[in-house]
């Protein structure tokens, strides 16, 4: 979009209220990321010791979800220029011209403040402050600073995606603990192999956009080493809730097996370095990584619900 076109659109938007539909604003909140955040935050909330009134629990999850949506909107506002050149993101509301960057910024800020204040007032202020920090971490530390400046962007930025179960936990207890930190650590260690498997697959896209993803900067070989290294750490971290005693034997066995499969697939990515077999191995690891994380948290939740019913 040229500068003149953009100016026309903004001027017009001031009178018409913009061209975005409700669906476009929902897309701005990255609903798929939100669904993962809702799920992991809910698991954190359920696993936390003590109890919380179901209504307060639901409010906490709602606020965390809206906070995640706010982060998504702020991310799309700042990253509109790179979204425009990547095939995966070209159809997002800002690059496609449905929402102006100014509207996205206002929307993101309103949701950020709204979700933090509501969580603070209705649940507890520790959880509210934690949510505020998470939004700041994702929008400022990751999006504005790290994403465009270091190939380790998603390692540190991944922390923002790993905080929700801790916020869910803090909504019940008003604090953080080693147990909730382990939930954070599982997602934190999972993020690099998950994204780098995708980055190896979509290398060209990030190159066009000038985003320093690891395969473009450090090379594919180095990326494969790091995927393997993180997978070696991830596999035992996944079993930690069982070792620490807040997950049962079923979780212990399943998480060990899932970790083993993760490791085998990461090894496959490390071994196959050329052509279609390499691409297939990356895609396989990427797809399995989504299942892996979902399965671990679903098992934690399932066990918790079963123990709750039996108690």
């Amino acid at each position, binding site marked *: 979009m040229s500068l003149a076109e953009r100016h026309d659109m903004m001027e*017009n938007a001031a*009178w*018409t*209220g*913009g*061209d*975005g*539909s*409700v669906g476009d*604003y929902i897309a701005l909140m990255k609903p798929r990321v939100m669904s993962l955040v809702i799920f992991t935050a809910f698991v954190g909330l359920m696993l936390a010791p003590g109890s919380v*009134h179901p*209504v*307060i629990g639901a*409010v906490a999850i709602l606020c965390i979800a809206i906070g995640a949506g706010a982060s998504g909107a702020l991310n799309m506002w700042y990253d509109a220029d790179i979204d425009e050149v990547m095939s995966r993101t070209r159809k997002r509301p800002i690059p496609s011209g449905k929402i102006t960057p100014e509207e996205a910024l206002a929307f993101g800020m309103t949701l950020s403040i709204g979700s933090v204040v*509501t969580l603070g007032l*209705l649940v507890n202020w520790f959880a509210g402050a934690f949510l505020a920090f998470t939004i700041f971490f994702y929008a400022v530390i990751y999006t504005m600073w790290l994403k465009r400046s270091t190939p380790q962007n998603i390692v540190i930025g991944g922390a923002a995606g790993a905080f929700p179960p801790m916020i869910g936990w803090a909504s019940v207890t008003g604090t953080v603990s080693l147990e909730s930190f382990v939930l954070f650590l599982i997602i934190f260690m999972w993020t690099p192999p998950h994204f780098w498997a995708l980055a190896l697959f979509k290398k060209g896209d990030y190159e066009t956009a000038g985003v320093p993803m690891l395969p473009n900067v450090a090379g594919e070989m180095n990326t494969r080493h790091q995927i393997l290294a993180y997978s070696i750490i991830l596999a035992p971290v996944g079993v930690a809730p069982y070792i620490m005693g807040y997950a049962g034997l079923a979780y212990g066995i399943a998480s060990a097996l899932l970790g083993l499969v993760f490791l085998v697939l990461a090894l496959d990515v490390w071994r196959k370095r050329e052509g279609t077999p390499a691409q297939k191995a990356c895609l396989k690891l990427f797809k399995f990584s989504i299942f892996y994380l979902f399965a671990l948290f679903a098992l934690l939740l399932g066990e918790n619900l079963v123990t709750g019913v039996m108690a």
Partner: protein
Amino acid sequence: MAENEQGIKLTAEQEKKRRSRSLAIAGVLIGLVVLFYIVTIVKLGPDIMNRPL
């Protein structure tokens, strides 16, 4: 602004989108009122009327 003095005519599509946005905002506001009302009741608990005078 000259354009505004003449009045901007919204297209049918723009009218439709503006209406749906307005309804969504109304829904969110009503939802917030209901939410704060329910949470207030939950937080106060059933014993609020049962206090020494």
